[in-house]
């Protein structure tokens, strides 16, 4: 089953075409990697799909429903949630408050405090942050902050989770931890698209990889196909 279908998605910033007619399909239950050099348009593609900015042209279908140009909160409530490249948590709020916000507002369902709190505790347990529940999010390490952002996204009960450079800035041990978490999330039945520069992570956990360059999709395939793809090698070596 297809979770997400993107056709001819385009975004112009003045004269710059940051995303240029991208087609993309995401299958239920997969981890799709999105790679490409700096400025390729990966984050912009996320912004267009999640409603952060309005696309110039194209089509976006999520679970059979047109979500082109909808507001972020609507898209989130339909089950599509994303994280940010520069980790965007609520620093003044505690870890628990960060996550319960997702539980309260991320679905159209009305929840009591007890229900939302229970769900929040379960998610904190799941990502391994239960012991930091009452700590202000600003006081956490980068890895923990990124996990808070993921936990908050999970609290919205998504079908599709889009991670923008979750591994960036982490040390090798932390990257391992993050990789394990991503796989655990997928095993819960949540489909994932991840933008990543850390090749080790991409090659190990993604079933399929899409390569962007100058706003265009230039290659698509299994990790093995991508690592031997001439165009891709050229892009990365040509830099």
């Amino acid at each position, binding site marked *: 089953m297809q979770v997400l279908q993107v056709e001819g998605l385009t975004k112009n910033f003045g004269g710059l075409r940051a995303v240029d007619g991208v087609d993309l399909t995401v299958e239920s239950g997969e981890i799709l990697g999105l790679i490409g050099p700096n400025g390729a348009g990966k984050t912009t593609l996320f912004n267009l799909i999640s409603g952060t900015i309005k696309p110039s042209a194209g089509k976006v279908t999520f679970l059979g429903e047109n979500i082109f140009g909808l507001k972020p909160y609507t898209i989130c409530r339909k089950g599509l*949630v994303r994280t940010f490249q520069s980790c965007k948590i609520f620093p*003044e709020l505690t870890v628990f408050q960060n996550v319960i916000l997702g539980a309260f507002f991320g679905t159209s369902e009305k929840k009591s405090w007890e229900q939302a709190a229970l769900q929040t505790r379960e998610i904190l347990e799941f990502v391994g942050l239960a012991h930091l529940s009452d700590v202000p999010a600003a006081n956490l390490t980068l890895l923990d902050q990124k996990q808070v952002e993921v936990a908050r996204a999970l609290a919205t009960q998504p079908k599709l989770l889009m991670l923008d450079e979750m591994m960036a800035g982490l040390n090798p041990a932390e990257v391992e931890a993050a990789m394990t978490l991503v796989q655990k999330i997928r095993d819960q039945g949540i489909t994932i698209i991840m933008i990543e520069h850390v090749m080790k992570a991409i090659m190990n956990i993604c079933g399929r990889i899409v390569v962007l360059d100058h706003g265009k999709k230039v290659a698509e395939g299994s990790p093995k196909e991508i690592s031997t793809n001439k165009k891709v090698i050229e892009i990365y070596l040509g830099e």
Partner: protein
Amino acid sequence: MKAENVSKRYLTPVILILLLALLIALPWFTRPYMVVLLKTILMFTILSLSWALFSGTTGYTSLATAAFYGVGLYTAAKLGNVLPVPLMVLCGGLFSFILAAAIGAITLRLKGIYFAIFTLSTVELIKNVMHWYEINVAGVRGHRILHVSDATVFYYLLGITVLLLLVTYLIKRSKYGLALSSIGSCEEAAAHIGVNVITLKVFTFALSSFFVGLAGAIMATSINYIDAYIAFDLNYSFFPTLMAIFGGMGNLFGPVIGAVVFSYLREILITRFPYAYMFIFGLVMVLTILYLPNGLVGLYQTIRLKLKQANNKKEKTLGGKHASTSS
């Protein structure tokens, strides 16, 4: 231990109820001047609380309070002789609510300083349009307003203050209070986890302005004459903002304390130093922003924390001998 917890839990409500009873009884045994002073203090308390409810939580600095206060005043001027007082006051609130919803829908897309400047300009715009209208179209300038006794106005203001405190308290402890903080913290993230940020901002802005309109409508009955320049005086935008910052917004009562101290100071300064009072005011604000980022309430919390730490140290060094003095 348990008894102590229970007594602590009931301490604040009990103090509040006693305070309220005292205030209710006050007009019977104080000098009339005191009631007039308390009216001003309560009016500024309402304005500061209202400002803190929206601007304090979301971080959108509104300087439009004077517009909503002025709408309240004008409602009384236009409807004071037609409607009974309670209904007239309610209309003042509703008109402010509607105006705030309209301003909010247009301006809450603006961020930071642009929002502040736009709201400030809105006050000036309304003031000048009103002035122009009265002179060129209506042909009258200013209004006389039906007079209501000081004690009655005082009770209205007290009622509005209690209601506003209650509403703020309930919002703060609900999921919407959390959502408002999340907007203040990182609005983009809030929007992406399902918070309908625009609706929440516009509604809260309108709700907070409702109380300003109520206050304006009832305060108008103490003024003999209003025109656009008196009604839409920018001081009603600046003072509540300064008072809320001065008192501190980390606590429900911060803006109340700020408004009480500040308006009392203002009264004293105006009578003693009519020419230097704005200067002294400015100085106090500069010092507050520089040295008390969390206002008076923040200062109190810091001192309490320091005392606690000092006591803990003492306990450690003295082997707990002085434990009984620690609280």
